[in-house]
């Protein structure tokens, strides 16, 4: 915990360490055991997803109708599903779909939300009021209901799930960014940027955006967990990715029918969902602590 002691204050001016002091961020993260656990789990999931074809013992689509609904065995570590496909391979390949859809929808909602939040917070006034009422409206609608309506309108499948999750979750980013921008835009350096002739666009994207990135990263991490959960819920209801493509949500749904015969059929993908969402939340909490100097136990301000 003595980390910033190693750097004696350099030029006689006690300036608080930057928010983006990467060295101390990494150290804080490592000190935080929960965060470390989250990061390790996610890293594992990522490796599994990327190297799925090499890790999976079988082709996830190969059926073996002589061996349906088997329990765990040496041949099939997690057993087989209702048409005799290897469960382990399907869970491994399912991670690809689930993580990809979570990541893509979070990415798009972050881009849309950050843009809208920046404009709304910077321009203020009527624009801000309209945008905030729209986000209020989106936040009032129960998430699952809106997604189900959108997916049934667009037709089930990967694209429509991504689109509808994006439509739903940009509001988180818009709100957070807008709040931060409202704080930052009154600071002297924004006025200084205006005084040097920077356009509104330039001020928003060059000067304000980097200053609001920390909360965006935190929100994105937590939103990723939430979006994976949403995606699984939609798949569980049969509106997500369609069979034979495996995803954790639709494995869970099919396995649910055979819960009494082969509990692992739904338990395995269910556990994966839980673990991933939990890991994202751990990581998000830890990142918030690490990126917010006020919450850092050894922050220079606390000494």
């Amino acid at each position, binding site marked *: 915990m003595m980390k910033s002691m190693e750097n004696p204050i*350099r*030029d*006689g*001016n006690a*300036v*608080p*360490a*930057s*928010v*983006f002091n990467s060295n101390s961020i990494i150290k804080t993260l490592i000190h935080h055991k929960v965060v470390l656990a989250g990061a390790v789990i996610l890293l594992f999931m990522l490796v599994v997803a990327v190297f799925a074809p090499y890790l999976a013992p079988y082709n996830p689509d190969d059926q073996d109708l002589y061996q349906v609904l088997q329990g765990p065995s040496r041949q099939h570590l997690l057993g087989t599903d209702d048409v005799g496909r290897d469960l382990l391979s399907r869970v491994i390949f399912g991670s690809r779909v689930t993580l990809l859809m979570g990541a893509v929808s979070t990415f798009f909602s972050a881009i849309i939300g950050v843009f809208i939040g920046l404009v709304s917070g910077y321009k203020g*006034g009527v624009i801000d009021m309209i945008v905030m009422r729209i986000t209020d409206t989106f936040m009032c609608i129960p998430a699952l209901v809106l997604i189900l309506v959108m997916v049934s309108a667009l037709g089930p499948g990967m694209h429509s799930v991504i689109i509808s999750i994006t439509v739903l979750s940009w509001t988180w980013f818009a709100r957070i960014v807008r709040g931060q921008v409202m704080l930052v835009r009154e*600071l*002297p*350096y924004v*006025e*200084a*940027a*205006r*005084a*040097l*002739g*920077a*356009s509104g666009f*330039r001020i928003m994207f*060059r*000067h304000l955006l*980097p*200053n609001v*990135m920390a909360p965006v990263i935190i929100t994105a991490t937590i939103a990723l967990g939430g979006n994976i959960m949403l995606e699984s819920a939609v798949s569980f209801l049969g509106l997500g990715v369609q069979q034979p493509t495996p995803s954790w949500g639709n494995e869970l749904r099919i396995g649910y029918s055979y819960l009494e015969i082969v509990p692992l059929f739904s338990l395995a993908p269910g556990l994966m969902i839980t673990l991933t969402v939990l890991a994202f939340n751990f990581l998000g909490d830890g990142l918030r602590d690490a990126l917010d100097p006020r919450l850092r136990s050894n922050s220079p301000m606390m000494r």
Partner: protein
Amino acid sequence: MLLAVRNLTTYFFNGQGTVKAVDDVSYELEEGQTMGIVGESGCGKTVSALSLLRLIPGPSGRIVRGEILFEGRDLLKLSQDEICSIRGNRIAMIFQEPMTSLNPVLTIGYQVMEPLLVHKGMNKKAGILKCIELLKSVQIPDAPSRVGAYPHQFSGGMGQRAMIAMGLSCNPRLIIADEPTTALDVTIQAELLEIMKGLTRDHGTAMIIITHNLGVVARYADKVMVMYAGKAIEKALTPDLYRRPRHPYTKGLMASIPRLDQDIRQKLRPIEGQPPDLANLPKGCAFAPRCAFCVERCRREPPALIKISENHEVACWNYA
């Protein structure tokens, strides 16, 4: 004539009423001339400077009247794009607090070259070279290795040097320095003012120094405008003002600074009272409640600036 400000009037409208931050202020500035605007906190110095670049924070603040002729064009009539192309390019501004006026997440190098990227269409490669040159000119040691530094790695004095480099980057015709040295140590103040004075002399840049430090004005300004409660109350060439201050307020300011040639047992004389509330000004002269020479007329009607010699104007009924 580089700059002619005529009847500049900036008000802030809030729920309670109208704050007359700048009220009917006029002045002129020649190429290469340095003018000091002096006054105590809240007298409208900064707002008058921000008005020049139309940086009055809206929607409550507004320039109500007046014209600002800069290089023959009225800045108040320009479009948003046109005023943006003047800010930082033809007129640059240097702010009070270097540490809060620099963006903490951008490098010093980027911020110094930003006006060049915006106005001169320079690419980053050329910008960095120019930036190193600029940082050298404001005497930042080891400039090439400092372009990648972030503001928190700079001290206040270094930060203000970078701000000056930034202000000078596009070689503007006018620099507005809003209390450029208030946040710094006395020794660094003098050094920075020398650098600024030297660079503006070399480039023939005109300068407006806003300060409450009469010493700074005496040394660096060619002429001075004293402001009180949003109004210009005395305008003169610097030597005239220091030799013979006319307005009771200016006299009060002079008497309240210690002098080396004065008997040390003699006490400094502060100006009694507080500056008036700009939203609620007295009917007559704003200084009347604090003025030792106040006559009956002072409370009734506000005095206008009158010329008492070639280069000296004062707003006081005692000279009418």
